[in-house]
């Protein structure tokens, strides 16, 4: 089975990279850009298991390694 974990900066944390990307999009005159926040996406292949067990495993992965919970949050999707 497949899963996706998305890691993003907490709203309270400044994101200079997102700001730089936002500036570049403005320079390209892409209309309507009000703000950009950069994050990370992890596409993960899992052995077949019950959805609860999969979610628990991914939570462990996210909290122990994929995200730094001091400045980041994460979202788990089973696909």
């Amino acid at each position, binding site marked *: 089975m497949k899963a996706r974990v998305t890691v993003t900066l907490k709203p309270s*944390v*400044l994101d*200079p*990279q997102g700001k*730089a990307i936002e500036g570049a999009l403005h320079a390209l005159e892409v209309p309507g850009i009000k703000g950009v926040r950069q994050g990370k996406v992890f596409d993960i292949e899992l052995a077949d298991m019950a959805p609860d067990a999969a979610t628990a495993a991914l939570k462990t992965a996210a909290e*122990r*390694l*994929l995200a*730094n919970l*001091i*400045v980041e949050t994460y979202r788990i999707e089973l696909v």
Partner: protein
Amino acid sequence: MKAAIITFPGSNRDGDVFRALADVTGHEPVHVWHADYELPQGTDLVVLPGGFSYGDYLRCGAIAGRAHIMQAVTTHANRGGLVLGICNGFQILVESGLLPGVLMRNANLRFVCKMQHLRVERADTPFTRAYRQHQVIKVCIAHGEGNYIADAETIARLEGEGLVAFRYCDAAGKIGGVANPNGSLHDVAGIYSQQRNVLGLMPHPENLIDPLVGGIDGRGLFQSLIAA
């Protein structure tokens, strides 16, 4: 003083720290590979050197912070052993939870490589006793992710308990403003653990031990460690 230098894949200042320790303390440290499980018996000081462990994949220091040897380093720290993390080593210390906070991308998004003045915040720790309190030293910095961030509670605790080790300053010792190269909160260049036996800092004292390369202000840190 027995020192062990941990080498991770991508460490590149392990040789510099070896030379600084051997030259200043007169004792040759030993190299320890990251996949080892144990530190050499009788280790007094563990050094996590600078570099780009695992190519800075995921987050700087994130993967190295979970290496096998870090369990032994944590045990060593918890029983009062000395741990020094320089640059990437500092990033590894915060990622492994041995020090609080996080090192984010420099506020101006640039990799900064230059000489930098620091103020020694206190001279009563195993790492700084060869300096004077508030002495201004000139060392070098070379990092892209040195912007120290922590929540307000953690910053208040670091300040309240005197756990800030070094702050960025100018040649006259004036803290912050344009002297802050990366946006670090409270101009933090290095911090101690609660017991002050773990020190993490972004600057490179190990590269300022020889007049040939522009100064010897880094020697004090290694002189301080001789008594350890």
